[in-house]
């Protein structure tokens, strides 16, 4: 992909012309991405979520742990929206009240902060560690490769959620431990992806050239190999955020993740699972929130994969 960079000796006009003719890889990818229907929807959803998370204080009418006590208002009251003809004497409750007299809408809004943090933090940590391990294994080869990758195979042999449950059981329930557990179980995925692309990149001619010029192995790995091996990680990582959010919600549902009164969507679902028939809104809205978030990251991930696919011409 380096061929697209204009040669330094070109004149200004020539450079201009070259930019018109050949786009930078980043611009080309962005253009493809923005033309991809699923990526458009995914980006829209995620942007919305990010905005909601940032401005949660302004959007949510109540604090997430504030009880709304008013005579005649029962816990698990159904939604009451004034615009839709709900009695204006009652407080407006877009998603109804939860089992502890708290405004469900405010909790879902604050929950977006948590879910996005969980998604980005765990995936970020897993990519960082997984990339280093995978790169080391792929570039060094030999016994280092064997040791690292067999360890990764051991982690992969367990179903991810089961392993996460085991880790949380050892560390004890809690949000931080959940983050750790979800990050640990996703490391091997990135390690494998990075290793396989490092394996193919390190056979390239420019690596041989760099080595012939006397570059140190570390420099070759971090400056020449890794930047060119990261493309697949971006795709897998985007999809991985969705999985991480889902796993963390699952752990919280089981009571192993976030602890009350944290407005974590999975926890909210789990707490009210027995009300599914007499107060369906309490499981519907957190469930929808999880679904939409996961859908957003999955659509974006699909779009990214298409856009970054070198075999597909614009």
């Amino acid at each position, binding site marked *: 992909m380096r061929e697209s960079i204009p040669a330094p000796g070109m004149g200004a006009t020539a450079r201009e012309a070259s930019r018109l003719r050949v786009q930078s890889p980043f611009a080309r990818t962005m253009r493809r991405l923005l033309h991809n229907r699923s990526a458009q929807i995914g980006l829209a959803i995620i942007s919305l979520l990010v905005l909601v998370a940032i401005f949660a204080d302004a959007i949510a009418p109540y604090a997430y742990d504030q009880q709304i006590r008013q005579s005649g208002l029962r816990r698990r009251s159904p939604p009451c929206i004034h615009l839709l003809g709900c009695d204006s004497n009652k407080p407006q409750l877009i998603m109804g009240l939860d*089992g*502890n007299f708290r405004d469900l809408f405010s909790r879902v809004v604050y929950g977006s902060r948590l879910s996005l943090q969980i998604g980005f933090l765990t995936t970020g940590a897993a990519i960082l560690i997984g990339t280093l391990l995978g790169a080391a294994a792929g570039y060094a080869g030999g016994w280092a490769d064997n040791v690292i990758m067999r360890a990764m195979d051991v982690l992969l042999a367990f179903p991810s959620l089961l392993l996460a449950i085991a880790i949380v059981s050892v560390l004890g329930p809690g949000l931080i431990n959940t983050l750790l557990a979800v990050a640990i179980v996703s490391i091997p995925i990135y390690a494998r992806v990075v290793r396989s692309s490092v394996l193919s990149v390190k056979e390239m001619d420019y690596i041989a050239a760099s080595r012939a010029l006397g570059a140190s192995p570390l420099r070759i790995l971090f400056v020449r190999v890794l930047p060119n091996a990261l493309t697949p990680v971006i795709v897998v990582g985007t999809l991985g955020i969705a999985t991480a959010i889902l796993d963390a919600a699952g752990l919280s549902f089981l009571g192993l993740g976030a602890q009350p009164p944290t407005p974590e969507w999975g926890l909210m679902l789990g707490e009210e699972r*027995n009300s599914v028939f007499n107060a369906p809104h309490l499981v519907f809205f957190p469930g929808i929130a999880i679904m939409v978030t996961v859908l957003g990251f999955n659509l974006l991930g699909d779009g990214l994969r298409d856009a970054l696919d070198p075999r597909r011409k614009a």
Partner: protein
Amino acid sequence: MNTKNRFLPALSAAAVTALLLAACAPAAPAAPAAPAATEAPAPAPTEAPTPTEAPAPTEAPAATEAPAPTASAMMKVEAPNCDYGGKMKAIEAVDELTVKFTLCSPDPAFPYKIAGDSFAILDADYLNETGGDSNKISENPVGTGPYKLKEWKRGESITFEAFADYWGEKAKTPTAVLRWSKEAAQRLLELQSGNADGMSNVGPDDFETVEKDADLKLIEVPAANIFYIGFNNTIPPFDDDRVRLAFAYGIDRQRIVDDYYPRGSVVATSFVPTSFAVGASPNVPWHEYNPEKAKELLKEAGKENLEVTLTYRDVVRGYLPNPGVVAQEIQAQLKEIGVNVKIEVKESGAFLDSVTAGKEAFYLLGWGADYPDATNFLDYHFGPENKQYGKPYDDIVALLKEGASTADLAKRQAAYDKVNELLKKYVPMIPVAHGGSALAFRADVEGAHANPVSALVFAVMAPPRDTFVYVQNAEPISLNCADESDGETFTACAQIYETLLRFKLGTAEVEPALAESYESNADLTEWTFKLRPGVKFHNGATLDANDVVATMAAQWDAKNPNHKGRTGSFEYWTAYFGSFLNAQ
């Protein structure tokens, strides 16, 4: 015990008085003609250490015939003295159908205790074969009950089939199935779809759903339990009396009961339900909700901006039908007095062990009655052995002893009034509620009932189908209830085994079961039971007094080869009768 799921009815004072009187006189017509056993004083031919049952197939034990020269020596287990820490002095098979229990101190509640499912009678030979091992017994349980085990599909269901040789009224339905599901919503769904005929613990918000459904009926269980918030007075910050008192002022119990408890629940004034003859003190009401005073107390103690951890187990009980939301409500209420509460859910077994060991500082727990007497509530919790509140309070211990030593209700109440005063002063716990709960059945199930303190009786259930299916919250732990204390386990055991006395359907009064009649001496230390003749075990053996002695000795005597069980703790024995014989 803590793990149980049982409730007491609103027992009128009269009922208890009657029961206490009954303790002094035979409650049922004495055995008309105890078979000639008394005349044959058991010569004990040579050495017969274990009773050898004469199989005598098909021969009905005709009362006229002298029971074939029984080779069985009459067993007797006796403690050398009363200093070993237990309450039991001796258990003796007086003759083939008479058993005598001798106690070290008077016990007016003995008939209730012996009616508990933990004291079900096993065949002595069978007990020796299995060595009292709960695992082996669970494989092939042998009792005298109206049902015998057909199959236990672990993790799925237990199937019972009617026992043809049952001594009493035979089971109305040939097959009964016990299943379990943790979620109240799922149990209700099974009931609504017709897959089940009955369910335990209707969700607090589902009472109306069940009542509106013409195919279902709701049977409410009266509130005779207690939900409390416990403290440990040895763990900071709860070692400071003012902190515990501040919490007592800072928790609005009325709000908890109004908002989170189903119909039939009441705010607790005392630890003991008011429906009991003695123990509750309506004239000593609990601290009024007063958040200002709570804040002052915390300020005085220098404990502003306190951070504490509240632990509980996520198990639905009649006393606590909504553990999660109640914990969060308490969290929210305490935040108003400036206390930050972190909530921690613990696994049920681990949580109970930790509370019992005195390791939980601040926790939610409750108690359902085993029998309708204050001793079952107060003595267990505030006695000298209990470590769950930290260091026991000596003045309460002394008063409890006073309250339990007499049958005079006025004297007992006077002692318990003082206990309640002290509980209010020390605040080892905050009594919150007596919770109401309910069972639900298909409307066409005849004989549907709810028992206040004992397990449901499947044998009287008569749906117009040949199978009765009941769904409860959890799977039984074993089918040997001697070493169990869990209500869900008792539901299974109660169908297979029987006790000397049992609780009358729908009440907390005892009636004869395997014993036809019983009597005690004047000072309530000697209890004699006349066994029902001709009772068959599921393996064909016939019940005799040695079976009773062998069953009890296996629990009582730590050196008995059958003293094994599941964990060997035999909680009910130690809770009712103190230490084991030959312990250590």
